[in-house]
């Protein structure tokens, strides 16, 4: 699996969107600089977007990944270009790339923390893989693993995209799919209830422990 050269990426960026091997990255600011000879030949830098999901203290002493509760675990904030977000030491936040990406059917990719950002002990990804055909702004699981609060400026470079060609791909046109189809902002995780997921692999409901907290199972009122 070879890393795709930038000249090939530029060729794909200029293809008509109806072509299966076309690549879309938008807005690609400073487009000419990105493809200058002096720039890295194997990666395209991406910028931090303007919307974030800050984790909330859960209403229980744990985070329960279920259908209803997973969406209540974050607070959305908007930090416009020119303003900054403070990420306290040892804290996490969900962000997204400013760029919207559409992957060709024959390429997969990876997003990596930009080295200068990594040196401040910011990690931007824990699920860095990008599947062929993916579209959307990339959700970034940003973690400040340093001992110092750090400021993040939306619009500044934060990561780099590396693309790889699949060793084999079929010519068949695939329909769009995915839990998070074409998001433009970071989105909270979506889960099924654990009972539902586990039942599918044959675990009987009676054997599945569900935490019993008041907020999870409200008492039924007497009729």
């Amino acid at each position, binding site marked *: 699996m070879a890393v795709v050269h930038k000249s090939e990426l530029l060729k794909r960026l200029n293809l008509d*969107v109806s072509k299966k091997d076309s690549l879309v990255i938008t807005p690609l*600011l400073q487009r000419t600089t990105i493809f200058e000879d002096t720039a890295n030949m194997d990666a395209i830098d991406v910028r931090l977007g303007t919307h974030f999901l800050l984790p909330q203290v859960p209403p229980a002493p744990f985070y329960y990944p279920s259908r209803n509760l997973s969406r209540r675990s974050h607070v959305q904030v908007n930090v416009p270009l020119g303003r900054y977000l403070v990420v306290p030491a040892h804290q996490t936040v969900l962000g997204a790339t400013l760029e919207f990406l559409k992957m060709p059917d024959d390429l997969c990719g990876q997003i990596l923390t930009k080295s200068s950002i990594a040196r401040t002990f910011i990690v931007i990804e824990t699920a860095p893989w990008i599947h062929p055909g993916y579209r959307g702004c990339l959700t970034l699981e940003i973690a400040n693993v340093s001992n110092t609060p750090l400021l993040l400026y939306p619009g500044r470079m934060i990561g780099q995209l590396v693309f790889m060609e699949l060793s084999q791909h079929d010519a068949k046109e695939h329909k769009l799919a995915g839990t998070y189809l074409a998001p433009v902002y970071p989105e909270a995780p979506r889960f099924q209830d654990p009972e539902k997921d586990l039942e599918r692999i044959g675990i009987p409901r009676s054997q599945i422990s569900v935490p019993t907290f008041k907020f999870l199972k409200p008492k039924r009122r007497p009729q």
Partner: protein
Amino acid sequence: MKRTNVNDLKETVRQESAALYRFVDSVIRLCTDINEYPVYPRSSRSLFAKIKRLGEETKAFLNGFPAEAAKDARTAFSKRLKLSDLRAHWETVHEYLKPVLDADTLHLPAPLTTVLQDAIESIDDLKDITFTVFLINELNYLQVPSGILIQRANDIADLIKGTRLPPRMGVVGIPYSQANGFFLNCLLPHEMGHFVYQEHFVTEVVPEIDKALETLEKDIGHALNEEDITMCRDLLESWIEEIFCDLFAICLIGPAYSFALIELTDATHLIGEPKSQLSDFHFFIQDHPAEMARFEAHFKLLKQLGWWPVVDKSSSAFVDVLRKSASPTKELHIEYALPVDEERFLKCYFEVCEWLLTFLPTKVAVSTKEITSFENQSPKIYDYLKRAIVPSTIILRKKVITPSPIVLINAGFFFYLDHMADLISNIAGKDPKSVDTRSQFTERLELWILKALEDSRLLRGEK
């Protein structure tokens, strides 16, 4: 121990001033942390800063008020009335400030409002007009008449000899449930139009209304009495202001405005309407011309500006509404009994409306380049949207193009009307006939268009 006599005038005034001081302080405290979270648009921040300054000036005034009032016992009572006025004005500010505070950038279609503000600033005579958006409970878009918030703030400034607010500051409301949406918020330019009309165009339009009424009196052969002419003038003025705002909105953003109005008013019910059963769309009411008459004017303006050939290509029922409204055989009525013949009075409305159709495009120039760009770029934008891709940059005939905001707004709306099924059919396991699915992907589409508007502004401003 000495007891304070509560009936003592000085003490009473001190008490009254302190109570009002505390009230004003509690109101302006809301405007203090506006540079932190949540984030507000520039115009809202400017408004908060000015209200805060006015609050500080009011507090300084109240500090000195007891001594001032006590100078002359004979005028003390009338001076104290000032406090009641001041309280009443601050109560209005209090009422309108909260909905503005609720409208932070997470609860506004911020990319769209920015595009609209840019469009208004690009018009020579309207450069200095700014708009602040707030959230309202009603599902009707509303422009606070002549900016009550601004008026009351200026009343306060006059009472305390404080700083007046800048004159060209408009306030428009959007329903809180539509805060993040795109399609219905294409009605915003109409609401902005009310402020633009009152601030700038009313003096040019009113003489045309007078002229039409004079012709009416000539035609009927006698002058109307004061009560009747006032009634006719009031009706005509409100209808003309409404149609002015409609036409202004179309000049500003194109057919997307008409479609948003058709959606808000459910005007697609006009299609298939039995002739024997005329709906409300045919009736002029106190505040608004009949929807049929409004859409007829939209049709004429779209034709005049050069939009119609591209609109006409759509097979949507929304476009059928425009076609049907343009029919010369339609019936129009006025809901009220008038002192003059209904048909003759409607002629007055249509005379001024015709004049507006010629006048407005000379003031709010629409670039034909935008329409040509729309024609060239919209099929390609649909290709992007069908594939669930944000169309802020498109490749058209091997060229990289950033569509303009007007092109994006209208292409987004046409896609919503004509191509939703194409998008949904591209998604595994989704049924284009399902209402739930269509609603879900309409929400996605709104996000993509708003993102494209935001990106387009960035790309165009790039150095």
